[in-house]
C-alpha cells in the first residue's frame, strides 16, 4: 500500500459534509418517509439516513419505511456535497416534525 496522498481521497475530504441527529417524535411511517424522499431528491449532495446501524439513501421511500424507526429513537442525517448543510437541515426538519 502506498502512503502517498490519493487525489481522489483528497478531493472527497474537501467536499462539505454535515450531520445531525434527530430524536423522532413519532414513528417514521409512510407519510414522513414520502416527504423525506421527495425533499432529498432536491439536493445534489449524497445523503444518508442512519438508524440502528443501518444506512439508507433517503430518496428511496421504501428503504426509509423499511428502517422501522420508532418514536423516541435517534436517526442521524448525513450529507456530503455542496448543499450538504441545507440538505441536512431540510431532512432533519421533516424528521422532527413527523406526527
Amino acid at each position, binding site marked *: 500500500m502506498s502512503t502517498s496522498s490519493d487525489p481522489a481521497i483528497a478531493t472527497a475530504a474537501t467536499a462539505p459534509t454535515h450531520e445531525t441527529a434527530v430524536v423522532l417524535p413519532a414513528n417514521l411511517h*409512510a*407519510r414522513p*418517509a*414520502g416527504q423525506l*424522499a*421527495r425533499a432529498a*431528491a*432536491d439536493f445534489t449532495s449524497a445523503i444518508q439516513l442512519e438508524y440502528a446501524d443501518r444506512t439508507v439513501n433517503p*430518496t*428511496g*421511500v*421504501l*428503504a426509509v*419505511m*423499511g428502517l*422501522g424507526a420508532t418514536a423516541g429513537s435517534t436517526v442521524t442525517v448525513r450529507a456530503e456535497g455542496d448543499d450538504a448543510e441545507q440538505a441536512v437541515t431540510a431532512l432533519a426538519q421533516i424528521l422532527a416534525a413527523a406526527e
Partner: protein
Amino acid sequence: MSASVGIVLVSHSAELAAGLRLLVEQIGSDTVPLATAGGTDDGRIGTSYDLVLNAIRSVDRGGGVVVLPDLGSSVLTARTVLEDHPHPDVLIVDAPFVEGAVAAVVTAASGADLKTVADAAKEARHVHKF
C-alpha cells in the same frame, strides 16, 4: 423541469386500484398524473382493454407513462393495449403493485424521468419491508 411521468394502476378490482391511488397520493403526491384502470367495463372483477387504453392516454403529459399491473390478466391486457398502440415512452413495469406504485409516484413527484421512475418501481421488489 420536463413534463411529469404519468402512472397507470391496472387492477382486477376498481376498489383496489382506487384505494391504492388514495394511498400513493398521501405518501407521495397528488400532483403526479395518475389514472386507474380497475375492473371490467361493467364494474365486475376483471380487466378492461378500453379502461387501460383510456387511462394511459389520460396521464400522458409528454414525459412518458409507467403502467403498473397487479397480476395475471392485468399484465396481458396492458400488453395487448401496448401491442396495438406501440409507444416507446409507455412502459409496463414488473413490480410489486403497492410498493411499486408508491416508489413510482414519489420518484415522479421529484421530477425524475421515465427510466428513473420505472427503475424505482422495479427496485421496489428488492427493498425489505422490515
